[in-house]
């Protein structure tokens, strides 16, 4: 994952990235030529025509039609070129090939989850290389944005509406996914990884990660802990984040912002999951999403409580 070759763009790792980079560098080089031209002319004129006496009264210079026409026409042609180049490529980036493998993406404060056709749910995006992948994305709360710098793709993720993005990775590696639409407290910590496999490895991964009926509730809870995004705000090692750590939480006495307190028994844990705004622990803000009563089954909530009890 540790590569770099250009001071500007990250190393390209998708089929479209090379085309985007070519356009980027075309604009960059053209811009540098224009910039150097403007600034060197400016410096030259400022020196060449510097004031020699306070009484200088140069003759007025009026516009030269040919010069004016050239600086209207040349930039117009150049921006027309980059506009057409840019929008054709934009359409290519925007339209997924028909044979794409589809993965559903859910964004929430402040984690991602990726759901596969066979029922596997993962917090990182595992995909095969050299195959177009289409992501169908939606948000459970505010607007987020799915950005993989190495693939040059980005799309906002909205509540109540699907948005799509597609890519075809060209290399087996691990890539960073970042949220680029401001979404609150832990916006800058809402990462995931794209892990690209060979086709065979990917199929094995899919099978290995199928939900297992033989798990204990606490083991299921552990999976839910990452799938549902608890991990974004609640650590397991005592680190304080946007929410309290789960370490030693069960059975402890909780002091609330309103001055009351309670022991964190099973019912307290359950209430805190389904109705987080009811009691806010002292020192924390009321930022936990309130949708888990809807998005999780009661078995899943039981499993999560069992998991928290073990920490």
């Amino acid at each position, binding site marked *: 994952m540790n590569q770099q070759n250009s001071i500007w763009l990250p190393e390209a790792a998708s089929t479209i990235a090379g085309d985007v980079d070519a356009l980027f560098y075309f604009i960059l080089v053209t811009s540098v030529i224009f910039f150097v031209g403007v600034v060197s002319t400016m410096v030259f004129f400022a020196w060449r025509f510097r004031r020699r006496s306070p009484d200088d009264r140069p003759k007025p210079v009026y516009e030269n039609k040919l010069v004016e026409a050239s600086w209207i026409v040349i930039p117009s042609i150049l921006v027309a070129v980059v506009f057409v180049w840019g*929008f054709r490529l934009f359409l290519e980036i925007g339209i997924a090939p028909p044979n794409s493998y589809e993965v559903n993406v859910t964004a929430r404060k402040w984690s991602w989850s990726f759901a596969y056709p066979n029922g596997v749910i993962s917090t990182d995006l595992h995909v095969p290389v050299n195959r177009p992948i289409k992501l169908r994305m939606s948000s459970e709360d505010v607007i987020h944005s799915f950005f993989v710098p190495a693939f040059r793709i980005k799309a906002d993720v909205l509540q109540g*509406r699907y948005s799509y993005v597609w890519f075809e990775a060209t290399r087996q590696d691990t890539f960073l996914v970042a949220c680029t639409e401001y979404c609150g407290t832990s916006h800058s910590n809402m990462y995931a990884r794209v892990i690209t496999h060979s086709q065979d490895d990917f199929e094995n991964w899919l099978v290995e990660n199928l939900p297992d009926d033989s798990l204990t509730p606490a083991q299921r809870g552990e999976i839910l802990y990452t799938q549902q995004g608890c991990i974004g705000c609640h650590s397991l090692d005592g680190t304080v984040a946007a929410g309290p750590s789960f370490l030693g939480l069960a059975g402890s006495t909780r002091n609330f912002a309103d001055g009351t307190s309670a022991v964190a028994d099973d019912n307290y844990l359950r209430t805190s999951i389904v109705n987080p705004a009811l009691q806010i622990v002292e020192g924390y803000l009321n930022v936990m999403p309130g949708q888990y009563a809807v998005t999780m089954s009661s078995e899943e909530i039981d499993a999560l409580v069992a998991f928290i009890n073990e920490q």
Partner: protein
Amino acid sequence: MSDESHNYLNARKGLWSWLSTTDHKRIGIMYAIACGAFFLLGGILATFVRTELGEPGETILGQDQYNQVFTLHGVVMVFLVIIPAIPGILGNFVLPLQIGAKDVAFPRLNLASWYLFMAGAIMAVCGWLFVGRVDTGWTFYTPYSSGASNAVLWLTSAVFIAGFASIFTGLNFIVTVHKMRAPGMTWNRLPLFTWAIYATGIVQVLATPVIGITMVLLFLEKLLQIGIFDPALGGDPVLFQHFFWFYSHPAVYIMILPAMGIISDLMGTFSRQHVSGYTFIALSSVAIAFLGFLVWGHHMFVAGQSALSSIIFSMLTFLIGIPTGIKVFNWVATMYKGSVWLRTPMIYALMFLFLFTIGGLTGIMVGVLAVDVHLHDTYFVVAHFHYVMMGGALIGLIGGLHYWWPKMTGRMYNETAGVIAAILVFIGFNLTFFTQFFLGTKGMPRRYHDYSEFLEIYPEFAVLNLASTIGSYILGVGLVMILVYALYSLFRGPKATANPWGACTLEWTHTGPVPDEHNFHDTPLVTRGPYDYHLADDVFGKKTES
């Protein structure tokens, strides 16, 4: 001259004479004091932001504090500094003088605009202290803002109120330019600064109501759960962004057009040369004012709007970009066969050309659809708009303040100190923001409290961010230095003459060192264009040079 003893500053005395004044010059000074204070506040917040980002991990601000600080930085700088500053300070002070008017068309409305601005501004700052700290970013995007604390309503109300100040100012200038020009001041003899403020007035009057309406809708949405923006209630999650940018993109022209006007006047005066492309610059300002209403969707290329809309918005964006580029060529060409005098205001004008060209070219970069997909909402965008907003609008303002300072205060500032500060500002600015282009192309998203996760891929993020932070301190030192020598000049600066720069516009040629309370003893009769230095025997004495 007898002006020494009697001018607009000493015509009346006492605090109340200022707070109740309808003199456009005094109102300009009051805007200067207010905007200066808010610029200081916004600048301090910026150094907090940069200090937090100077090292990876949490340094001085927690996540929530950081989000609150960059929100207030954005709100203060956009709504309380860049939008009101040039029309409020220089538009008020200079425009009536430039066209030979005794005052603006509606002097009381002018005073009312200052009070509304102050009411909005004080509401915004007091809200932060006493109501609650908003963390939505200055863009207030729903559904994040409609789910945030009620303090957001307080802040958007402040923006709503301050918006009326902007409308009043714009309306006043439009009417003033139409109806109050001195005899002989035809439209093609208007100084380009006046043209720019006039074009800005059109945008202020047409665009500002939209932000007011948007803020009211947000208010209703949040209080009454109407369901305009909330998809769960049948609303549209992207609609707010359309409304918001329908104002806020034209607002970019409220910020930059007046600065372009200042640069035009500076290039003319300090090159002592006819401003190249006068008609083009004047009319393109007005054209940009209207076209500026048709490009808002370029803020939303990845927000899920239709590909067709994105393509049209991209094309219209370039239509605006071309005249802007041509203006830059014209400003450079103005120096050709001129007599270039490198005093502090001119140094800022050249700095504007340097920085604004970078801002404009990177604007082309993010206007290109396929490239914007990668760059959108990264530090590339942060760097781009700081090059335009600060490198363009604020550097233009600083240049303009240096230029008109002798007229406003009757004093000169120390030229050496001015040059040193300008160099510090230039170095600090570029170190702060040019580094952010590299961060952005590599993929560092904006509004990030921490970038530790990127360090394993790009270890250079640490040094780039540190360089940016050091740059912001250098920039801060330069700006504070300006404040110090400006205050010093108020009390100890040498007395200014009536026309220290040899300019040919009315505010220099027809008033004393400090203008009279009623501007002119006699209504000026205008017989030449604003940059006809070869005809200005009244300024330079009778002489024709070959």
